[in-house]
């Protein structure tokens, strides 16, 4: 298979320092945008791609002593080639009166640079 650019989708879940991804819950979907434009004679089709990235969903268990991620937080994976995901949704579940699990919606984009706005 030939692919333009770098492959975005990874089949295995990333690892995080403060969270454990619940087995089988990591889902990734390519969110790269594209548009088709045709040449003047109608014989050539061009595709433009922009904003390469992935949308992800997962259930994360919060490691003992850590806190739940919030919307707007950035989670950086601890892999060899780390990726930084921005948290777009966080739904916390409690057990024993403590927040232990959070269902997150994440987004990752190529060249994403986390910026903290105070």
């Amino acid at each position, binding site marked *: 298979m030939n692919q333009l650019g770098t492959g975005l989708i990874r089949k295995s879940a990333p690892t995080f320092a403060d969270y454990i991804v*619940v087995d089988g819950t990591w889902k990734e979907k390519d969110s790269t945008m594209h548009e088709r434009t045709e040449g003047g004679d109608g014989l050539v089709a061009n595709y433009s791609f922009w904003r390469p990235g992935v949308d992800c969903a997962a*259930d994360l268990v919060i490691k003992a*002593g850590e806190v739940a991620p919030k919307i707007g937080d950035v989670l950086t994976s601890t892999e060899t080639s780390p990726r930084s995901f921005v948290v777009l949704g966080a739904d916390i*579940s409690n057990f024993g009166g403590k927040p232990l*699990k959070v269902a997150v919606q994440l987004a990752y984009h190529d060249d994403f640079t986390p910026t903290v706005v105070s």
Partner: protein
Amino acid sequence: MSEALAECLFNIPHILCGLPMEPLSIWHVWMLEFVRSPYIGAAPGGTASDLALALTICSRKAVDPLEASFDLRPSPKLVEQIDKEGILETSLAFQTYLSDYNALPKVWEGEDGRPVKSPLCLYLVAVLIRQGRFPHAAAWKLPYGYARHLVLALAEAGGNEIPLISESEVAALKEAGHIL
């Protein structure tokens, strides 16, 4: 099958101070609550007579509380036997028996859950009669832990989404350093 369900279904016989313990039923838990046993709930401490009473209750066959009368006085021989075998040792063995039959399903706590206001044993019996079509006596005699699992399964079978903690979640929680 979940570990908790297997735990409360498959048990070796428990014999304490020479008394074979019955499978811990809703009736047994109800009776332990009735006598305010320190082995159920948050009551502190526990004496030899508390232990003798708890052993006496749990060695009786479960009955329909509407149909039976019973003498709950422990025999003097039992109190002697507890002294002989040791209160602490017998107490620990009794707690092992309780936890064997009381391995409850683990459920995520929702913010929009409706708390049960009826006594829990009565609530379980009511659900088993209403949803499980159990006769009144049979519901009271059902093993307590199994009844808790069954009530959730009945709710799920009725189309409700039950946020049970899955085996994958249990594994992740253990890896994350949490004790369940």
